[in-house]
Each structure stands twice: as C-alpha cells, then as structure tokens.
C-alpha cells in the first residue's frame, strides 16, 4: 500500500490526468442520466401522475393525447365493454399562456388538460401528486406541475390564454405532472372547452382526446385493456404506465441514451486499463527488481489494485461533485434531479469495470520472473 501511494505522490500529473478523464466521463454519464429522466418525466409525467388506471385513445391518435379523438360511437363501445366501472372524458390542448407571477411578462407554451372534476375535484384524470394547495373544485381553477412554479405559475397566480382573455387561477401544485415539457394545467373539462373557444372563434366542439377508465371490481387494469380493445379496431386502450412508456418519442429517447451510455461505459475501463498497462510496462525493471529482492507478487498486484480503486474512486467522487450543482438546475424547461440510484449504479459498475480492466496489467505483474533481474529482461519484454 505504501508503495502504491508513494508512486502516485511522485507522479502526480499522470495520475491527475487519469482522474480528470474519469471524472469528466462520470460527470457526462450522470448528467445525461438526469437529462434522460428529466426529459421523459417532462414529456409524459402528466400521464403517469393522473388517476385513471386505463386510458383509451383512438387508433388514429397513435398514442399522442392531443392527436387522439374519441367519437360518441367509440365512447359508447367503451362504456359497454366488460370490466369498465367508470369512464371520464379527458381533453388536452396547447395554448399560449401568460402567467401573472412572471415578473417579465413572458408567455409560454402551456398545456391544458381538462377532466370532469367530480364532487371534490378528484374525478377521473385528476393529478395524483398534489404537494401544495388543493385540487380544482370549480371552473377556471387549475393545478400546475411543480416544475412550472419558477416560471410564475404559483398558487394564487392567474394564467391568461392568448389571444383572448380567458383567465385560469392556480390553486394547487402537483409533482412531476408535466406534459410535452411545457407548463401543464389540470382544469375542469368545461374550462378546457372554453379555452379552445376563447383562442379560436372558428372552432367546433372538440371530441374528448382520450377516455379515462376505472376498472370494475374483479378486473385488473390489464384485463380491462384487453376487454376494451376487443370491442373495436379503432380503440387503443392502455394501462397508464404503458400509455406513458409508449408515447411516441419515449422509447427513441431511451434507445438513444442507452447507446450513448454503453459507449461511455466502455471508454472508462478502456482508459483505466490502458493507463495501468502502460505504467506497468514503464516500471517493468523496478518490478522485476522488487520481485528479485523478495517482494511477493501478491503485494505488487494489490498495490496495483489499490491504485485502480483510488484513481477510479477519486474520478467518481469528483465527477459526482461536478454533477451535483448541475443536477439542481433546469435545462430548457427540463427539471434535472440528483439521481442517487444512478450515482450508486454507475459507481459500482465503473469501479468493477476499472478493476476488471486492470487485470491485464496484473497478469503482467504476476508473470514477472525474478531471475530476469540478472538478465536485464522484465515484464515489458
């Protein structure tokens, strides 16, 4: 151990460069992990965090809420399907919103999700993660996603939809309930219909975009999905988790990031392995001499492994420290979070891969023959 630290102290620059490379890689991996999760949550969080266990789209909608339209015939088919207890219409539109809480008077793309409130605002499609305030219990009231509060969508603020003067008052905040990575308001279905009329006087009455369904007693959400889909080829029922995961773009985002993570994950052990292999070559003669004067091979290998653990560990620590302040920020409407599970997962994986990659160098050390000290040969030959 003494040998390992002494060597690192004497060659600070080379070990510091390796730590810097690993730290940058760790930072990039963790940052992109947060970016991926933030992007997906901002994209489909409202679908995951609403109360209907089953959502029914029209096949034409291709699993995009705003693209789907449920005709009266389709709604009747859903209501009569076995396994359906309650059905509620859900409508969604994107508007230009001007929140009163924004000091600069900025306007934002604002998603409005309308659902039938029910007696206490807890109707089918209501947000399930209200962390502040309350659910809407009247028209022109809204619950907003927590990511939007900083933009001026706070409780007590009003949002004016442009053009026109339709105003909606915010009464509650829900966690992770954004849709389309834009400020998202949950309002009554009537408020949603009024909003459409207020910005487009030519508009006809919109059809519900999707139907929220509560399964009957004795039916699971999956059984209800099957039952509804059996009614018509125009109906596309999904559990809410499937609806979130199968929203167009989500799987592409995940696939793209997975390829990026794989490549970064491969670079870390390659850099570590290469570094220690070269260092082992460089000190071949010294290692041979140490073996000749009685140093056991095990001690030399453990010295190498200690260096690997310290270097990769330092890289992980610095990378995580770089990642922490970045993970507290928002990026173009995407809320980043410190992903503890990602830090643990990547730390264990990269440390294991780092140690594994150094085994090539360890094998070189083990193959040293002390007799070579007398012939001038070493592990490098």
């Amino acid at each position, binding site marked *: 151990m003494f040998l390992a630290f002494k060597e690192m102290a004497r060659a600070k620059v*080379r070990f510091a*460069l390796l730590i*810097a*490379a690993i730290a*940058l*890689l760790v*930072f*990039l991996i963790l*940052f*992109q992990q947060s970016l991926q999760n933030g992007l997906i949550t901002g994209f489909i969080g409202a679908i995951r965090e609403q109360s209907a266990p089953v959502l029914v789209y029209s*096949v*034409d*909608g*291709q699993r995009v809420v705003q*693209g789907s*339209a449920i005709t009266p015939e389709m709604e009747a088919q859903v209501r009569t399907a076995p396994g359906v207890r309650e059905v509620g219409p859900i409508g969604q539109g*994107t508007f*230009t919103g001007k929140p009163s809480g924004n000091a600069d008077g900025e*306007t*934002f*793309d604002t998603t409005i999700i309308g659902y039938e409130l029910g007696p206490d605002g807890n109707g089918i499609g209501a947000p399930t993660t209200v962390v502040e305030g309350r659910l809407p219990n009247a028209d022109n009231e809204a619950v907003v996603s927590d990511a939007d509060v900083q933009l001026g969508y706070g409780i007590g603020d009003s949002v004016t939809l*442009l*053009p026109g003067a339709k105003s909606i008052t915010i009464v509650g905040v829900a966690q992770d309930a954004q849709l389309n990575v834009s400020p998202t308001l949950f309002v009554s279905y009537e408020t949603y219909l009024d909003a*459409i009329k207020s*910005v*487009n006087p*030519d*508009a*006809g*009455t*919109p*059809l519900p975009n999707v139907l929220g369904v509560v399964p009957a007693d004795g039916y699971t959400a999956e059984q209800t999905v099957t039952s509804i889909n059996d009614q018509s*080829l*125009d109906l*596309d029922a999904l559990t809410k988790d499937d609806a979130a995961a199968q929203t*167009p*773009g989500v*799987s*592409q985002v995940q*696939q*793209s990031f997975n*390829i*990026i993570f794989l*490549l*970064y994950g*491969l*670079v870390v052990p*390659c*850099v570590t392995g*290469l*570094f220690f*292999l*070269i*260092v082992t070559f*460089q000190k071949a003669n010294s290692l041979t001499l140490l073996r000749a004067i009685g140093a056991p091979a095990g001690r030399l290998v453990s010295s190498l492994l200690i260096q690997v653990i310290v270097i990769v560990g330092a890289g992980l620590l610095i990378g995580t420290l770089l990642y922490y302040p970045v993970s507290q920020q928002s*990026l*173009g*409407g*995407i809320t980043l979070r410190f992903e503890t599970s990602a830090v643990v997962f990547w730390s264990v994986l990269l440390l294991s891969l780092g140690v594994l990659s150094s085994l090539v160098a360890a094998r070189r050390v083990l193959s040293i023959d002390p007799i070579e000290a007398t012939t*001038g040969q070493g592990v490098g030959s």
Partner: protein
Amino acid sequence: MKLALKELRRRPGRFATATIILTLIAILLMFLGGLLDGLIATSTGAIRAQNAQAIVYSGTAQASFVRSRIEPELRAQVEAVEGVTEVGGIGNVQLGARVPGNGPRDLASVALFGYELAPDGVPDAPPFGQAWADETIKASGVEEGMVIELGPARTPIEIVGFVKDTNFNGQSSLWASPDTWRDVLSANRPDAQVGADVFQALVVRGDGTDLPGAIDAATAGATDSYTVAGAVAAIPGVTEQQNTFNQIIGVTLAIALVVIGLFFALLTVERTSLYGVLKALGAKSSTIFAGLVAQAVVVTAIAALIAGALVAVLDLLIPPGSIPLLVTPARIVSSVVLLLVAAVLGCSFSLRRVLRIDPASAIGTTS
C-alpha cells in the same frame, strides 16, 4: 518524423489500445452529432424548404402553426408592407394515416400542409384531394398513386408523387392545396378548424434588409415574423436540443483531448532515454515532437475512419422510425477535424517533457 511513422508500422500493437479508445470516443462524437442532425432534420424540413424572406405567425402563437391564425385583414396589412412582393398562406394538421395493405392499427404519422407558394423542391399544389408526400413515408408502404386515409374521419388523399427533406415534427409531410387542408382539418380536428381564407401562417417573399421586422412594425405586433432560419430556431425544442447536444459533444471532445494527452505523455515518459539518445545523436526537440504529433494524428485518423465506417453501418442497421440518426459526410468530416485538433492539442502536453530531455542523460542509461 520518419522514425515515428516507422514505429507505428513496426509496433502497431503498442498503439492498438489507444486506437480502440479513440475509436469509441469518435463513435460517440459522430453518434451524438448524427442524433442531433437527425432530430433537427426531421423536425424542421418543412420550414427549411420554404423559399421566403419571412415566415409570419400571429402575434401570440409562439411560432406554432396550430396556435396561429392569420385573418384576411391581417394578411392585407402584410401584403401592403413595402418590399413585399408575394404572400402565400400556409397551414398544417398532424394526423395518423391509414395505408392500404397495412394492419388496422398500423398507421403512418403525417403532417398535411396546405400551401399557396410552393417550397423548394415541391411542385405547385395538386388538385383537391391529392398531395405530394415526403419520401420518408415510403417506409410505411406508401406508393405513388396510392390513396391513404387521414385521421378519424378517414379523409382520402391520393399521393401523386414524392418530395425530399420536408418533414415536420418528426412526421412525414404531405403537401396539398389550401382547400384540401381545410377539408381535412375540419373533418378531423373540429376544434382547430379555420374559416375560409384564414390561414395559420404566411410565407412572404420580397426584398429589404429586415422584412420580418418591417412586417411586425406594420401590423403593430399583431404578427410575429421570422426569417426562415429564425423560424427553424423558433420551433419549440430546436434551440434547446442544439445547445444541449453541443455541450455534450464539447465535453466528449475534452475527454478525447485528455485521453490523447495522457497516452502520449505516458509514451514520452517510457521513451525518455531513447529520446535522450536521439538528441545526443543530433536530433532536434522539434523533430522528436513532430514525430509524436504525427503518431497522434495517424492514430486519431485511423480511429476516426473506423468510427466513421461503423457509424455509417449503424445508420444502415437502425430501422426507419426508431432512432432519428442522420449520418452526413459533413458531420463525419467535422468530427474527424475536431478529433485531429484534439490530438494535436493533447500531444502538446508532452512538449515540455520532450524539451526537458537532456542528451547527456543518454550516457549510461541505455544499453
């Protein structure tokens, strides 16, 4: 330099690991760049194709077609602006399309545009009920002469031919007459329908140094006008995607630089005594350093070429409609150039070490 290249030829194994790492980093750079290009290309083609000096939305639309409405009176104001020579209305609707021969749940995503002024590469609008289609829709089995059905109303549209690079929001575009667009919009999106002569946006041709600014001034802010490049950047998410990806690409390049620096610093340390001998024989520091740079450039160039080929193969293997990867020669070349610059810069870490080598150290240190 000859010596350095000779070493590369005779002991390629010594450089193999560095080449593998740099290949991985080059793949990362090209993949990230290709992903960015793919995302931007499939989102912005319909706007980029516009042959115009200004794209005009209504003042509160935030550059969104669906939230924009241009009434005939507002259009007349735009037409009266000095320097404006041609004005054409444009609108779109995004729907699912049923394709003959495909399964009943297997729909193609399309964005149907109604237009008055033809974009670059798109012929004049065909008669009612017909449309030009972006060639990407062929992946869904659409052929010329085929009638596809749009939206829940299953409005029939005959495809009369194909155009290139005009996609919008990741969807294959269809280009039709304004009447066709209005008909499809009313039948399938009653909440978004517009009156006769109302468009979502205007495509404006003309001259003048700042036509968008002149239009917005003339309409007293009732319009929100952009150049074509500005309209592309204003599409929600485009600028954010570009900034994020460019930052990630920048840090990846910094990693490449550190890796190259690390590798050649180690190599220099390993060969200090050898360089001492070379210096003792009369070799200049600049010659030795040039050899190192040559090695770095060759190793990086090989890695970049392998990476370029692998990314091109990856592009072929990825099925259409999954990952939006667009591999272009420009992206490959720019990635290679950036990597080569990183290689030279990374190598310069070793310059000080080479300069410090004392020829006298050669005496008695090498056998």
